């Protein structure tokens, strides 16, 4: 009995770990959608680039002989956020802004093009093979009887939760307290009115891309260190998962993205544990189909009211 409970708890812990990183990426999708109504399909690639930058920074600092773990971690986090943010800014500027005001399909196609471009750009510059990174943070706690089932909680998992929580708290403060954060929300409710208050909506849109990209880089760092491996294609599936999480929670809603990410992570972990890990993507995307069928506005989203 206790074994089964521990097994369940273990899956829950694993699910919450992956789920919280999905949530971080999903916020980028949901914020951009909320403000300009487009799906930024290049967002997954930003996450992938975040992981690459993390690995490069860690390797570089190790080469220079810097070994203080907190210092290396912080440096990697800041650099990957900054690099990802500039990618986010540049993508919006180059691929989306010139198409604003045109039909939405154009921006969508441009996003897919940007995604393919970034994937291949990284493939050419970094090679297409897996790049591995030895575990930076090892160890953890174990619970239960070693002879039967032992649940474990690694330090890395705890770090993932803490960093995610802190990041989300910072984001929440930003969008509720700071005037630029509030402007992001104002724009997502009525872009034209925000312009009529003298606020340059283009700047707010650029800011949204920058913030979303920085969050994706946080996820890139965390998952990169957790798995210890990266290749140029990881952004695609992670992007799809996070997109699913955003739709699940209600696209446009930030709390929805957080909830959707966690839910998706736990669902995947449970499917792997009690069914078969090969089916975890099937179940995840089936969940998306079910939500779209029965609650198309998502768990925390609001149904769109057609005004007549």
């Amino acid at each position, binding site marked *: 009995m206790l074994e089964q409970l521990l097994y369940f708890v273990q899956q829950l812990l694993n699910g919450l770990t992956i789920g919280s990183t999905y949530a971080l990426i999903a916020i980028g999708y949901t914020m951009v959608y909320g403000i300009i109504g487009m799906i930024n399909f290049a967002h997954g690639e930003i996450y992938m680039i975040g992981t690459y930058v993390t690995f490069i920074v860690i390797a570089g600092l190790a080469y220079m002989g810097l070994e203080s773990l907190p210092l290396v971690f912080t440096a990697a986090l800041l650099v990957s956020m900054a690099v990802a943010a500039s990618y986010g800014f540049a993508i919006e500027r180059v691929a989306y802004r010139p198409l604003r005001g045109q039909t939405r399909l154009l921006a969508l196609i441009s996003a897919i093009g940007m995604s393919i471009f970034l994937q291949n750009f990284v493939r050419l510059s970094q090679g297409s093979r897996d790049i591995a990174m030895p575990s930076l943070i090892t160890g953890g706690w174990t619970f239960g009887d070693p002879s039967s089932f032992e649940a474990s909680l690694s330090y890395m998992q705890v770090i993932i939760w803490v960093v995610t929580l802190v990041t989300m708290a910072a984001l929440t403060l930003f969008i509720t307290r700071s005037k630029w954060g509030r402007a992001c*929300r104002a724009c997502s*409710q009525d872009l034209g*009115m*925000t*312009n*009529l208050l*003298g*606020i340059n909506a283009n700047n707010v849109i650029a800011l949204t891309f920058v913030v979303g990209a920085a969050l994706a880089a946080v996820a890139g760092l965390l998952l990169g260190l957790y798995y210890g491996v990266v290749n140029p294609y990881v952004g695609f599936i992670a992007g799809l998962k996070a997109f699913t999480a955003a739709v699940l929670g209600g696209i446009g809603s930030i709390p929805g993205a957080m909830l959707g990410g966690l839910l998706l992570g736990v669902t995947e972990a449970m499917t792997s544990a009690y069914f078969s890990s090969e089916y975890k993507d099937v179940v995840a995307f089936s969940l998306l189909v079910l939500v779209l069928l029965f609650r198309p506005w998502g768990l925390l989203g609001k149904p769109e009211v057609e005004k007549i």
Partner: protein
Amino acid sequence: MLKLENVSTHYGKIQALHDISLEVKQGEIVTLIGANGAGKSTLMMTICGDPRASSGTITYKGRDISKEPTDQIMRTGLAVVPEGRRIFAGMTVEENLSMGGFFTPSKRYKDNMELVYELFPRLKERENQRAGTMSGGEQQMLAIGRALMSNPEMLFLDEPSLGLAPIIIQQIFEIIAKLRDEGVTIFLVEQNANQALRIADRGYVIENGHIVLQDSGANLLVNDEVRNAYLGG
């Protein structure tokens, strides 16, 4: 202060405004009256640069603003209370006001907030309430308060009385008069011609995108054509 010369506006191929010329002098209340679809809101929004005038010039404080982007125009001492109020429904009253005061220097910001709350005590009571859950009158107050947060020299109001109870309308018009007394120049678009002409220094009548009449508020109020068309005979 604000001068329009031969301004025309098109929506695609449809011409909504035809060679409009109009002037608002400092310290005045000028009203624009007309029926539904006559082009009142289009005219007001054209001044804000959205939609853009297809020809003619719009001069504000001696500068041609007809080619400037909307957000830039709106940072030059103009504020607008648009048609349908367009408050940010998902944000609190305080957050809505803070968006209006986005560019207000932090020294003035607190004072402005207090002035708005003084003018509309209801808003103070509902400071942390989501704006979308308030009544129409309260939302209208919020829309006006939001516009006042930027210390505008000139205020555009688009049908502030639409859909409100008579007692609230009375209040709103009193506040408009009060603002003028404090030195704010007011351009008021109204369907409620009676009330609007009563407080206006001057008025313009718009029909099918043409200005057909202009005179002082008092004269328009007794003008036969206006009485028949807009004041119910």
